[in-house]
């Protein structure tokens, strides 16, 4: 088959504005994009870069509250979408341009069977009869390596797992054999081990049908596997565009270089002091939420003074529950938590002020962790006032000191409210609030996963500096192995509420591993564009699906 390499989509000077409730502000500030038939282009950028908006615009679609500015040109296969009628644009959607959304679970209609949603477009466009369309759906399910391809379509969305739904949605996008598919962060909501199979499935099917695609993601390693060319965006503007290999080896712009360099931070590993009582000791803890099954089963590990223990696992592994047991929010049904050798009361209500002060917490979502109606000075000042009884100038002095410590200018931030701050600044305030209590131990619950990579790295460096200065112990809950690599001294791997393996970091990252650790480690995408291909060959294509569906 000779592939036609003509231009399929040509976007020129795309400008999009969003409505803030008062005025229209620019979101996309003049982006050009040329896509050939069969080409896969990766759009990457941090949050607010406008990648998703460009994806929708490629379908001639502006989300509610946004509009495409006059003068922008979006030409799809010879047809100008900005001047076409709504009916003409609609006729392209689903048939010639398809869309795969981030959350398949939310994007499938809960009221209809998967296959009925799949066949909706082919039936609407009268491409196939119902029986043909269903046969075709099953065929696609099989190509995408879904289990029970003949039967799975007849289930309702809530009866199917997230990774399978994402593949079913890719199949649905394929139903009319479109010329172009927009993938909008299709694997962001998935665990790493599930991500692999979806990535593999998407790549295969796009190859097989020679479909052009725009692949939107914030994850460089993922885009490296999928795209032929990569376009980097920043705040609604293009930074640079190059073929994938070149972009990885030889980025031109400073911004791109800084993105590439993010993963290099790694601090020296500390080792456990001999014979010292651990600061926190979790001993054989079982726990369950009221009336439910056990979510923690015999969990034991120690955290020593001034050290970082990373607790790693996928969603549902019990890592956050462990934190809740330690803080006393969820009393264990069996086992206990020791602090400096002394058992802590299981319920936080029964703990002394000093016990509460010693263990502090930093949360994943800085948005929900800070009260939006309270000034920064009070957010940080309250623990100091509450535990140490500071007031007046003493208190103000302490707040200034804490703001200095987290590298924010006290004169600028003292009187502001959280909604006026950026994500990274909010997270710093969260850290300052924890420090204000003068703790010896801090639980960091996925503190960087909601942040852009550059910002996240800043937070990690800050946490490292604070640890050295204040001799803090961290329990670092994360699903991201790159974070573990950069900051941990010891690692605890959890799966289904059990600790499957634990030990010093260097030991954990060198084989032999426990099989689950091995699966977890090997599933983390790497920047090498051939990583996915190699991995699939190593694992053998057939067991990819099963590995993650257990």
């Amino acid at each position, binding site marked *: 088959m000779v592939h036609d390499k003509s231009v399929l989509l040509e976007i020129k000077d795309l400008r999009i504005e969003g409505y803030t*409730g*008062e005025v229209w502000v620019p979101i996309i500030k003049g982006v050009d994009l040329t896509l050939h038939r069969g080409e896969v282009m990766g759009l990457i950028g941090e949050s607010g870069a406008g990648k998703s908006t460009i994806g929708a615009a490629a379908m001639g679609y502006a989300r*509610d*509250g946004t509009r495409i500015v006059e003068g922008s040109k979006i030409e799809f296969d010879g047809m100008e979408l900005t001047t076409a009628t709504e009916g003409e644009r609609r006729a392209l959607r689903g048939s010639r341009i398809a869309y795969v959304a981030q959350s398949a679970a939310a994007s499938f209609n809960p009221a209809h069977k998967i296959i009925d949603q799949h066949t909706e477009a082919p039936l609407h466009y009268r491409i196939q009869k119902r029986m043909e369309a269903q046969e075709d759906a099953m065929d696609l399910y099989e190509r995408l390596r879904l289990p029970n391809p003949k039967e799975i379509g007849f289930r309702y969305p809530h009866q199917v797992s997230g990774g399978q739904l994402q593949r079913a949605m890719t199949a649905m996008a394929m139903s009319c054999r479109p010329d172009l598919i927009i993938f909008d962060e299709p694997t962001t909501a998935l665990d790493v081990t599930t991500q692999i199979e979806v990535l593999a499935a998407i790549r295969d099917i796009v190859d097989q049908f020679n479909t052009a695609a725009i692949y939107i993601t914030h994850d460089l390693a993922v885009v490296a596997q999928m795209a032929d060319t990569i376009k980097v965006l920043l705040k609604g503007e293009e930074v640079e565009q190059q073929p994938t290999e070149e972009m990885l080896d030889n980025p031109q712009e400073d911004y791109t270089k800084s993105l590439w360099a993010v993963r290099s931070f790694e601090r020296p590993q500390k080792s456990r002091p001999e014979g010292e009582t651990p600061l926190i000791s979790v001993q054989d803890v079982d726990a369950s939420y009221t009336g439910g099954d056990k979510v923690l089963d015999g969990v034991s590990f120690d955290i020593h003074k001034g050290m970082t223990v990373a607790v790693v696992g996928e969603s549902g592994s019990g890592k956050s529950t462990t934190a809740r047991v330690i*803080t*006393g*929010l969820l009393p264990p049904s069996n086992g206990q938590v020791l602090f400096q050798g002394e058992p802590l009361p299981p319920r*936080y209500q029964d*703990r002394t*002020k000093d016990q*509460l002060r010693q263990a*502090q*917490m930093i*949360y994943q*979502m800085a948005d*929900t*962790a*800070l*009260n*939006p*109606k*309270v000034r920064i000075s009070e957010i940080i000042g*309250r*623990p100091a006032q*509450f*535990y140490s009884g500071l007031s007046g100038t003493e208190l103000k002095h302490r707040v200034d000191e804490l703001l200095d410590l987290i590298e924010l200018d006290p004169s600028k931030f003292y009187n502001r409210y959280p909604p006026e701050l950026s994500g990274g600044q909010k997270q710093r305030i969260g850290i300052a*609030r924890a420090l204000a*209590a003068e703790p010896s131990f801090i639980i960091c619950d996925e503190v960087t996963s909601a942040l852009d990579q550059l910002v996240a790295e800043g937070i990690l460096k800050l946490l490292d500096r604070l640890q050295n200065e204040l001799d803090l112990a961290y329990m670092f809950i994360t699903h991201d192995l790159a974070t573990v690599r950069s900051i941990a001294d010891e690692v605890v791997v959890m799966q289904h509420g059990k600790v499957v393996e634990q030990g010093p970091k260097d030991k954990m990252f060198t084989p032999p591993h426990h099989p689950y650790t091995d699966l977890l480690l090997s599933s983390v995408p790497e920047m090498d564009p051939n990583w996915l291909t190699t991995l699939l060959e190593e694992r053998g294509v057939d067991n990819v699906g099963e590995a993650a569906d257990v």
Partner: protein
Amino acid sequence: MSVFVVLYFACLIIASCLAAFYEKRGPFILLFSLTLVSFILGIVGGTGALRFVAIAAAVLAFAAGVAFCFREFLVVLLPTKIGKELKTAPLTAAFGLFVIFTYAIAAIFAPWIAPYGESEVIASSFAPADENMLLGADQLGRDMFSRIIYGARNSVGLALAATIAAFFLGAAAGLLAATKGGWFDQFMGRFADVIMSIPSLIFALLMLSIFGPQVFVIIVAVAIIYAPRVFRLTRAVAGNVVVMDYIEAAKLRGEKDSYLIRREILPNSTAPLIAEFGLEFCFVFLLVAGLSFLGLGIQPPTADWGSMVRENATLISFGDITPLIPAAAIALLTVAVNFVVDWMLFRSSGLKE
């Protein structure tokens, strides 16, 4: 064809043309379809129907004008920050504010505004309006206008007192239930469910039949009936706040419930709670008016809008609109409050999107 009809259609067509010329699509469609409808209306209903349309349009335009002026007035008068918010308020909300403002003035300064006393008999019963009596006399020959002014004080005052009572009871219980959780929360939730399973008017009638129609009983009855509704909403609003991490952080710090409610939960619940207060007031006001209408509200001779409707109801069968005036007074205030609440709800939901 009368001059009126010619003028009527001329105005409509000129306005349509202007709208079309300035490419105002919505107003054009509205005006032109009104023109077309008027043709049919004119043929079917004659000049009378057209006159009605013209009067309705004039009233609307007048209300819009008043609302606009009042909004500008407030924008100039109030501090810049609130003024800026107000500038974006729709005319309906401005109209609502204006009406509430007027009622408040009437209620506070009733004795100075009303030309006659509340229960002063000055004419024969059902005497028509003359230069002394703006709206005529009621069934005992008292001045209708004066009684309506006094009614603003009594009817609105009673509803306001009852709403405040219900609100404090419900909101306090809701905040406490959300903060404490556990069995207290469960119990209060179930208890509210049970109370709410009795239709409000029926429950009020039951209580009034037993304890008699006194102002104090009405306030307590309404508080008991509406507190569970306020409780539910407060519980829901506070429930959304309680799951936030900053509440968890405060709990883990060892803060007491009173601090949690005062500093953490309440500041994040005020906007929906204020809107809810407006809504509850409407419900309470309508319920109290209904009770008065049934003769179980404030007892005569105190002026009260609900009972005024009932006392003068017989006039309706003679085609006299007098009994509709106190009813309209009730409706107008409720509409006004609802307009304002609608705007507030829109604002708080619009900010999220």
